[in-house]
């Protein structure tokens, strides 16, 4: 994927570019808002990572300008402002996701993959999700592993649905908390882990191959086999 990073802080930019290249993306960098807006508007990037505070043109203006001109490039806004209001403003300007500094690179990468995947529109209208022999019927609200029917509580169902929609990708604890519980703060405890382990107990039994994997230092990943 071709990603544009608009970030004025040289250290943060270097750190982002290095990580994104290691993850297999082609990265361009703009150090100020004016250049960044020009590049974003003139080149067909797959994704945009933009800092909120930038010289010349700020991040929110870049995003809203792109959106006003019909450019739907998946965008993550980075910011040092972390309150709910700031976040709401960021998303209202047209950002697909909003990440508060400081963040771990794993968190950024997981969120970037999620917005890139979402923009490709995969699975948005599916009625059945499948990963290996795990099958989720969204209309019938039922889940099967092979021939075994699995009984899930509503919250467990939503948790699994989110993991399945992002199958093969790392999802972080905060991403799960935001999407499954719809609250926006860092819960700071292992509550999410307990939910995952309970879900894992129902999905992965001793006879089958484990599907829910823990990714150290990042979060979780639902995939057919260890790659």
């Amino acid at each position, binding site marked *: 994927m071709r990603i544009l990073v608009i970030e004025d802080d040289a250290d943060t930019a270097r750190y982002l570019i290095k990580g994104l290249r290691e993850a297999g993306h082609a990265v361009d960098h703009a150090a100020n808002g004016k250049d960044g807006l020009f590049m974003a508007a003139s080149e067909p990037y797959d994704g945009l990572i933009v800092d909120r505070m930038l010289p010349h043109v700020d991040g929110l203006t870049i995003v809203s300008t792109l959106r006003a001109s019909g450019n739907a490039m998946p965008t993550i806004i980075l910011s040092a402002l*972390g309150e*709910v209001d700031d976040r709401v403003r960021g998303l209202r300007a047209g950002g697909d996701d909003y990440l508060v500094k400081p963040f771990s690179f794993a968190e950024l990468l997981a969120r970037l993959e999620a917005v890139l995947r979402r923009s490709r529109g995969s699975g948005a209208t599916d009625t059945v999700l499948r990963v290996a022999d795990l099958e989720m019927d969204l209309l019938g609200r039922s889940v099967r592993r092979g021939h075994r029917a699995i009984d899930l509580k509503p919250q467990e169902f939503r948790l699994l649905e989110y993991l399945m929609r992002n199958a093969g990708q790392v999802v972080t604890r905060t991403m799960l908390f935001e999407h499954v*519980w719809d*609250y926006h703060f860092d819960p700071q405890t292992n509550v999410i882990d*307990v*939910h995952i382990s309970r879900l894992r107990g129902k999905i992965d039994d001793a006879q089958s191959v484990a599907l829910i994997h823990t990714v150290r230092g990042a979060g979780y990943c639902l995939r057919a086999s260890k790659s």
Partner: protein
Amino acid sequence: MRGRDLLRSRALRLALLYAALFGVSITALLGAIYLLAANQVRSHVDEFVASELEMLQADYVVDGFDGVLGLVQSRDASDRSNHWLYLYVAADGSRLAGDDDPWPDATPDTDGFLTLPARQHRGVVRARVAHFPDGSRILVGLNDYEVGEMRSALARSMGLGLGAMLLLAIGGGILVTLAMLRQIEAINRVTRDIMAGDLRQRVPITASNDEFDMLGRNINAMLDRISTLMDAIRGVTDNIAHDLRLPLSRLRGRLEASLADRNQPAQLESAIEQSIDDVDSILTTFGALLRIANVESGRPRESFTQVDLTAIVHDAEQLFEPMASAEHKTLRLDADVGVQIRGSRDLLFQALANLVDNAIKYTRAGGNILITLRRRDAHIELCVADDGPGIPEDQRDKVFQRLYRADPSRSSAGNGLGLSLVRAVVLLHDGYCQIVDNAPGARVILSLPVAIDSRLA
């Protein structure tokens, strides 16, 4: 008090302005009185002249020529003041009696009066002429010198009065100004002392309960609030310095030690991972402090919406129930349905999550945690109760303070900010929180005001 202050004083300028306005109006009033009085006196002079002349004419009717002559001569002899002027001449113009002045050739005004220059004194002579049947004529005049005398006496006394009045106004203004400046100076002295660093100073309050006392009381109340806040900030700063020094020095030590491990990649990696954890915990503490500060600033109030509190407590129960049962504890919920509040959904949930998380953390295995949500008449009561060790009575207020930990040795988990955020969130929603004995355990009670339209919603 310095003279310079007095001259620059707004109070004095106001007093002088009042004195000037008062002086102008008094001058106008006195001027009007003066003119009226002067006219009155002049008309009296005219009346005197007219009645004297009438008397002479009556004499002529009774005694004829000799009568008039006798009267004029007797007047001439008795009137030493020379205020009166008599000219009695025959038909041919020769002097018969009276003063020596020549017959004036002035023309009479519409009232028949002549105005002649006076021989003596200042002023003028008002005169009138009468013709007798034998051709002789008489002129009777009276010096209006008295009018002038009266005028100048009037003007003198008015001038004196005006001067005294102005002196009183200016003097009074200065006195009032001095008194006012003294009270303002008392306030200024206190503020100067406070600027110099002595925050204990307070504005003296008098018994008169006037507007200066009101101002003083408000300033004192403001100072009390500021010193409370400063004490709180000082406490927090001390705590932050203390709480962050430990992880920072641990981090430093680990980084130093890892220098020695530079040839052993596995150990180096684990040292780096632990260092990142340390930094994360420091950042978490900062983040929590910033979040509390943001909540306390009241800014989140701008994005308040109608929030379903019942849904929030169900979410919290659902989120934490697996954690509780994993630790062999029981989490239960007893909530009234449809409880609404105006507020921030995220913050209310986070406050509740902090309470439930604490309760689970501090309850022994086999313990019980109960969340209750009740709608009372005037408020909503949200409780999180546990049957754990509880919180000693003398610490129940302190645990809401930033970075305070009831038992520093108990756990390294948590940063002592969870309950501070709870309190900040509750205050943001105009509620209050308290901890009571749950016998055994602790019960945290959050009282929140009922949303005005909760019955309708």
